[in-house]
């Protein structure tokens, strides 16, 4: 479970998130929706501390992953990121071979045994539903794959590290409909084993794949509920307008 407690977040003087409190359940898909600039990515990036890389940011409140306050001084951010993986909006495979892309996280962890690495790589690529397409070209450069394949490779790269949580920031927004469908299928497939948080602009997508949906507006969490209720029975007028496409 991911617990977000009274989180405020600032980029220099800009107050990007206001008093966010929510709990994200395990082994389910939670979608973040809301108009552009409302802070979805910012909150997502707080969960694996990617915002640490940006200068001049400030956080108050707490975020707990599996009961551990991840902003506690004792926490090593590298360890946290092995547990909380991330898939980015734009597919970003390394300009290395397909194999080495997936093996990267394992090598980071200091794994040396090549047979073990091979098994883990194969396993991860299979889980990402990419194996049949790449099994014969594992040594080819990953940048030669199609956009959709690259994104599934990035998911495989993330899975190889065996994270518990996977954060996805609009993972299909740069892809064609068929590739998007494959990613969605994959997400549904993975949710039995992973806690997945996904940012999306696509209402239909949120409806199709998520169990819970959080609607953000101007840095505030307006409404958070089961996806069914957010879309069919929203409590807030703003939520209703947004999910029915009247603004955003």
């Amino acid at each position, binding site marked *: 479970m991911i617990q977000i407690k009274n989180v405020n977040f600032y980029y220099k003087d800009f107050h990007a998130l206001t008093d966010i409190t929510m709990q994200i359940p395990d082994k389910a898909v939670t979608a973040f929706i809301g108009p552009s600039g409302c802070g979805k990515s910012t909150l997502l990036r707080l969960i694996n501390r990617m915002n640490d890389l940006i200068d001049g940011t400030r956080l108050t409140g707490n975020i707990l992953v599996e009961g551990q306050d991840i902003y506690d001084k004792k926490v090593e951010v590298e360890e946290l*990121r092995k547990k909380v993986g991330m898939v980015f909006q734009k597919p970003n495979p390394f300009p290395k071979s397909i194999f080495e892309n997936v093996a*990267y996280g394992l090598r980071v962890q200091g794994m040396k045994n090549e047979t073990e690495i091979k098994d883990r790589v194969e396993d991860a690529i299979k889980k990402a539903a990419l194996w049949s397409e790449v099994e014969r070209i594992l040594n080819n450069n990953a940048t030669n794959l199609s956009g959709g394949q690259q994104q599934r490779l990035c998911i495989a790269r993330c899975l190889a590290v065996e994270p518990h949580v996977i954060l996805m920031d609009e993972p299909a927004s740069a892809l064609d409909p068929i590739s998007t469908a494959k990613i969605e299928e994959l997400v549904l497939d993975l949710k039995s084993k992973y806690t997945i948080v996904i940012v999306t602009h696509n209402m239909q997508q949120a409806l199709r794949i998520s169990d819970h949906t959080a609607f953000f507006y101007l840095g505030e969490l307006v409404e958070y509920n089961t996806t069914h209720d957010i879309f069919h029975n929203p409590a807030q007028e703003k939520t209703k307008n947004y999910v029915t496409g009247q603004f955003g």
Partner: protein
Amino acid sequence: MKAITKQKIVFSILKVMSFMVIAILFLIIGFIFIKGIGVINWGFISKMPEEGMLKGGILPAIVGTLCLIGGSMLFAFPIGVCSGIYINEFLKDGPLKRFMRLMTDNLAGIPSIVFGLFGMALFVNKLKFGDSILAGSLTLGILALPVIIRTTEEALRSVDDLHRQASYALGASKLYTIKKVVLPIALPNIITGLILAIGRVSGETAPILFTVAAYFLPKLPHSLFEQAMALPYHLYVLATSGTDIEKAKPMAFGTALILITIVLICNLLANLIRAKFKKK
């Protein structure tokens, strides 16, 4: 005038200009080649100079220049690349970074004769290396530093931040990310810096004038603490201060041809290395 005609005219002008650059390059190389090829033979590159440098070869100058290229790069390449990495990867945007950039640019703008003077004062006199390959290499190295730092910085800056983020998101540390992701991507372009630096260093006369170059020294160097002849200075000597300048002219052009050839070979090698890394 129609936009399309205008465009055509502009394109033609750009085309002519760029062809002119190539033409000038060919003109120089062709000129040196025609004037210099007459004296080139095995003896020219394998023998010591004889009879007031009017006969024999230029072997010690070739060896001297190669030593200076190697020595200066051995010193400047690691330092330059490390500074470039530090400036681009570790310094936050701010006054310190701007200051470092400004200093590098200023270093690049200093006339090379000033480096020579500085090298003489510091390496030759103060540190007591004497007129030596060591002093010359260090002086040339300093001269080459800004080029290497700048190209390294540019090469690192052109690495897409998404790659860094992907690495961090997989639990990699900053150092690991730089080593395994950023540097491999940037390496081909960093090597470009090496090529430029070699080109710069191999042709400089002023910095070696007071630090290493011998007027006439018909033997090969045995240690870093010896003086050496060098191609650019030898060329200068042949063209200006020999016993018979007219007679020395073909030798001067031959020397120039060898110098150009060495630079071109260095470029070619570095390009091959770069291409190899790019493929990987």
